């Protein structure tokens, strides 16, 4: 292992500092007893955390976001794995077009997608529908999953599948017992990135959510446009804490290395 020089160490420290500093600040601000976004100087208070739970619309929005992200990430995995297999393994007419189509949501600004979906949902009478909101999220998160699945497939030793086949496994058994476990890091990594992207997607969601399906980022955005108080910081701090706990639990139960990096 190569040692880092002093300049490299300083650089790393700065990068980590810049990434972490806002998170630390927002967490500290959440504990302020004041009415403005200030660092707590004299005492710590949980008043703004209480305020969050006195706003049931935030709790509902959180629930909406959680469901939305879970379903959207899972659906996108269900689409991206077969699509990835087809694109990786077969040469068929329209293969490049299909690949391009699946990845295009990455290129189109979410603002444009938002307006387009708003118009489409109005036309088909789907405004306010959780199902259609979910589908719109599936469209924007699938490219991430597909990319990771394709990367995992390209690094896969096909002879393991051939070995399973010659040992008497059917094609589906090979897929279930060999292919999927071997590309699991790509699939689970893709799911996680899809979940996160869906969970904090704001730009498009502003256009396609309705009062009944409002997501947490949209809720926060609407709140912040009306008033700026430390409750936003409290919501953020809760999110950070929740994510951290989820990561620790995942790591303890499955091992994040195993899921995201794979067994080597």
């Amino acid at each position, binding site marked *: 292992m190569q040692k880092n020089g002093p300049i490299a160490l300083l650089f790393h420290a700065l990068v980590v500092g810049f990434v972490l500093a806002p998170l630390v600040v927002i967490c500290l601000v959440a504990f302020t007893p004041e009415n403005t976004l200030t660092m707590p100087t004299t005492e710590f208070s949980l008043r703004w955390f209480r305020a969050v739970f006195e706003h049931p619309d935030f709790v509902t929005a959180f629930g909406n976001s959680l469901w939305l992200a879970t379903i959207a990430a899972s659906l996108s995995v269900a689409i991206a794995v077969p699509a990835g297999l087809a694109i990786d393994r077969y040469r068929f007419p329209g293969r490049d077009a299909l690949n391009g189509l699946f990845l295009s949501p990455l290129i189109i600004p979410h603002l444009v997608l938002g307006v387009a979906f708003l118009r489409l949902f109005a036309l088909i009478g789907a405004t306010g529908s959780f199902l259609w909101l979910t589908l719109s999220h599936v469209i924007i998160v699938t490219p991430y999953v597909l990319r990771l699945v394709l990367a995992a497939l390209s690094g896969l030793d096909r002879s393991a599948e051939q070995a399973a*086949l*010659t040992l*008497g*496994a*059917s094609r589906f058994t090979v897929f279930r017992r060999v292919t999927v476990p071997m590309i699991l890091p790509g699939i689970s990594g893709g799911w996680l990135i899809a979940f996160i992207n869906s969970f904090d997607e704001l730009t498009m969601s502003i256009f396609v959510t309705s009062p009944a399906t409002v997501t947490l980022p949209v809720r926060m955005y609407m709140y912040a446009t009306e008033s700026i108080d430390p409750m936003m910081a409290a919501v953020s701090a809760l999110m950070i804490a929740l994510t951290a706990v989820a990561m620790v639990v995942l790591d303890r139960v499955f091992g994040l290395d195993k899921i995201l990096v794979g067994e080597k």
Partner: protein
Amino acid sequence: MGFLTLEGVSKVYGGVPVVRDVNLAVAKGEFVSLLGPSGCGKTTTLQMIAGLVEPSGGRIRLDGRDITQEKPNRRGLGIVFQSYALFPHMTVAENVSFGLEMRNVPRAERDKRVAEMLGLVHLADMADRYPRQLSGGQRQRVAIARALVITPPVLLLDEPLSNLDAKLREEMQFELRRIQRRVGTTTIMVTHDQAEALSISDRVVVMEGGRMTQIDAPYRLYEQPATPFISTFVGKMNRIAGVWRDGTVTVGNAILESAPADIAPGTAVTALIRPEKLRLCRPGEGRLAGQVASRFFLGGHWLLTVATEAGEIMVSVPNTGEEPAREGEPVGIDWTPATLRVETASEVAA
């Protein structure tokens, strides 16, 4: 009639013939090697037998049954891949057990057979390890166990030893032969290593440019190579171009005495003799005089290159405890005429 037969099997990839009209009959219990340089079609042939590649033409029969169109998961053959192709997410025991599971063998019997097989390949105490925790040689043996546990009628080995270091490769050659003898499974091995093919096979099939050019026992293959390619690919061979004259090969002023051959005088020929069939003797003695150009010590023997009037000739000198002539020293070379074979130019063209 062989146990496994290939009848006129060929494979064309995008207009390019890779395997051309291959015929082979393998007897039950036989160990046959497909030997050739990379790109000669040997692996494609193996994959066609396995059912992983569909032949463009010809028939493959197993025990009289036509399996040409049969899916690989119906053939029941055991295959060991070059990369071993172990399942990384399963333990050694689970890897070996996989084929039995696919055959719905009950749990208790499965465990018993897996244990037996792991014992056979000396890995009994590794059952709960994952492939990544094993050395190359151990992975190799897991792959063999996994292929053999389903008691396949034919075991196919694709360059099974090429990823091992030299010492281990030699050990595994004996190991492979031991296991094969013990289990008695008909085995076909693909290899580009001629020493490996010669040492463990009952018969060796040499492939060149998609064709099988010689099918013979290792000793015969070595002593009577059918093509110029085989003569140099299998072992070392001195090839000396000359002219046939009075039962000898004439190269400039040098006259090489050979085995008798029915060739018209004046024909352009190539004299063939293995380095170990040549004897080094004192200067002035022997049939050919020369000077040592280079000398390599190879443990069991020395390999000398001797500059003669007939060109540079390789001579293998057994290590008897005495150092042979040094570089630059004059020497004589002798041989028994019957060991010098002659090949005509027309044979070379064919």
